[in-house]
């Protein structure tokens, strides 16, 4: 019984996500689960996943955030749009240049934060103001469109339908294999592991969800490229945060920066990396946004920083750093995405949607904190 309670507690957000999906499915008479909505969910929220991944790395280092991501998305769009649409530059070359700009911005921001010790809050606040202004100035306040087809297709295209089930099956098999291998490795080394039942349940659930998506995509247009971009990025960062030394450093800094520094880890370098990484991921989010809108416009990226932070916080990333996982963040981002999509399907007034979003964010944090309090009490 206690075990079951613990499982529920550990996966509360996941359970809430399922409940929310069921709620909206009931409220919309099932239209929530239509194939086109699976596509929409991915397309509309791709940028949240990408930005929240970067934000997670920043927040791990001690609750540091990057407020400038929304403005940087706009700035990258204006530069890229100018190069590709007005300048008629080669798509590959302009994408490389955009990445280069991202690296440059990340280096400047990282240097200011890590080596000049300016609070991230302020440094990125300055970026928030300056980049939005600069970006809009480059566009002269006008929308630049349309983006070249080859660029748009890179993100908005779909893999042929026939691949859906095969890819879904491959993902399922890989997941089961990795989970089983992880468990046997842990057992061999004598570490504590989860029970066999919970592992089997987890595998079955993941496979079921994967295959559900695969079927839905097969009935629509095929697997969207955005999903592949998002999946690759999420998997890379899942690997970095859970399997690599540098990933562990992000957690230790968030836990205790001074202790980390004294144990011989270059904390400044990690902080620098966090913000450089954020800027690079922001460029990718910028591409996704440009492709979805097939344009660069002055209001692109407004409030993106809030979406990314909300996704992390709802996904259980500590606002004080040191704890949080990529998986949790994905659940958080999906939860927010589903709520947005569901509310739009129920045609709730967008103004109320804003109110509800705020309430959800607050409720999630309060909930998380109460939950943790109970855990420490046990």
């Amino acid at each position: 019984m206690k075990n079951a309670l613990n499982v529920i507690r550990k996966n509360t957000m996941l359970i809430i996500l399922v409940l929310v999906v069921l709620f909206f499915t009931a409220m919309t008479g099932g239209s929530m689960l239509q194939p086109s909505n699976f596509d929409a969910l991915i397309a509309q929220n791709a940028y949240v996943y990408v930005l929240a991944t970067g934000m997670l790395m920043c927040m791990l280092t001690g609750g540091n955030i990057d407020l400038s991501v929304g403005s940087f998305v706009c700035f990258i769009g204006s530069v890229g749009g100018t190069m590709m649409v007005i300048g008629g530059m080669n798509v590959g070359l302009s994408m490389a240049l955009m990445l280069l700009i991202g690296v440059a911005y990340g280096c400047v921001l990282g240097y200011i934060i890590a080596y000049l010790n300016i609070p991230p809050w302020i440094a990125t606040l300055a970026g928030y103001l300056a980049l939005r202004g600069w970006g809009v100035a480059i566009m002269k306040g006008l929308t630049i469109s349309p983006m070249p087809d080859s660029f748009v297709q890179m993100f908005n295209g779909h893999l042929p339908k026939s691949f859906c089930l095969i890819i879904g099956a491959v993902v399922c098999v890989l997941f089961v294999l990795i989970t089983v291998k992880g468990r046997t490795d842990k057992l061999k080394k004598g570490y504590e592991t989860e029970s066999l039942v919970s592992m089997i349940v987890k595998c079955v659930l993941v496979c079921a969800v994967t295959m559900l998506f695969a079927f839905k995509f097969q009935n629509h247009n095929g697997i969207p490229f955005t999903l592949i971009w998002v999946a690759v990025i999420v998997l890379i960062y899942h690997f970095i945060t859970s399997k690599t030394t540098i990933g562990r450093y992000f957690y230790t800094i968030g836990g205790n920066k001074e202790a980390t520094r004294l144990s011989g880890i270059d904390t400044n370098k990690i902080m620098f990396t966090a913000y450089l990484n954020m800027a690079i991921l922001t460029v990718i989010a910028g591409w996704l946004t440009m492709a979805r809108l097939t344009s660069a416009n002055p209001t692109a990226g407004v409030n993106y920083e809030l979406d990314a932070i909300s996704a992390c916080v709802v996904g259980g990333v500590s606002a004080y750093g040191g704890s949080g996982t990529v998986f949790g963040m994905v659940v958080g981002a999906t939860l927010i995405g589903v709520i947005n999509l569901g509310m739009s399907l129920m045609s709730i007034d967008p103004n109320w949607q804003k109110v509800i979003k705020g309430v959800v964010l607050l409720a999630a944090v309060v909930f998380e904190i109460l939950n943790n309090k109970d855990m420490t009490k046990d």
Partner: protein
Amino acid sequence: MAQGKEKKKQNAAASGFGKAAKIYFKENAGIIVALLVLCIFLSVNPLTSFSFLTQKNVFNVLRQISTNLYLACGMTMVIILGGIDLSVGSIIALSGCLAAGCVSRYNLPIAVAILVGILVGLVVGMFNGWVIAKTTIPPFIVTLATMNIAKGLAYVYTGGSPVRVVTKEWQFIGAGYIGPVPTPVVILVLVLIITAIIMNKTKLGRHLYAVGGNAQAAQFSGISVAKVKFLVHTYSGIMAGLAGVVLASRMYSGQPTAGDGAEMDAIAAVVVGGTSMAGGSGKIGGTIIGGLIIGVLNNGLNLMNVNSFWQYVVKGCVILLAVYVDYVRNKKSKL
């Protein structure tokens, strides 16, 4: 001996004001010089010299900065506490819309409308303060949430379009004059005096610095940290409510888009004014100059016909510069 002490006290009292002024100038030397350079540049520059120093423009600048400084008064205290209040911009929208609605939709007396607007700020501020005091949720997340909620409610109430007010008297508080001085500026002076008294002469003020410097130590020395947090956030809310009413009066309407980005301007004024983002230190005197610099900068850029997009870039750079100077100064004082 005793006589000597007495004499010293008298001397201190006599030269108290001069001393205070001296300390004030010394503490804020950097930003005062910056402000003067800015003003001199604008009065000499042929593009702006004919308009900058006119009485109309000076009052204009003062009127423009007054709403920002109301916010900055609350924000200074919140930042000294080590927190942040992101919800002020949205409170401006909500309080402005409701106050304007009171006058134009329900035909209530203007005094009631003003009270309603300030009450809106009070309620949101109290909510912020209550959650921040009672839980360990970081202030920026709490106020981020209330920012969305308040903004959403403003849009819900207005349906997205401005609430126009045709009543003439309504314009007094935002666009009117008391004698030759614009009303918002008179209110600003009152607000500044009240804030200065709270911060420098009351127990709450002392506790504010103690909690901002080291919350745990403050708690152990018997200060109710929760109460201080609650009161400070409530004050910030009230200031935002007031700013909302004044702005709605100046624009003859309550607009749901009012106050967009106002929190950034307020933070900028506070930070440029030398309040440390780390908490525990800062003065309202610095914030005044910070607000003036931001206001004059905006005005100068407007007079020079600089594209408003570039104004954001300039503002961003100014904030960064201010924090960098703060950092260098802190480093020096530590050595």
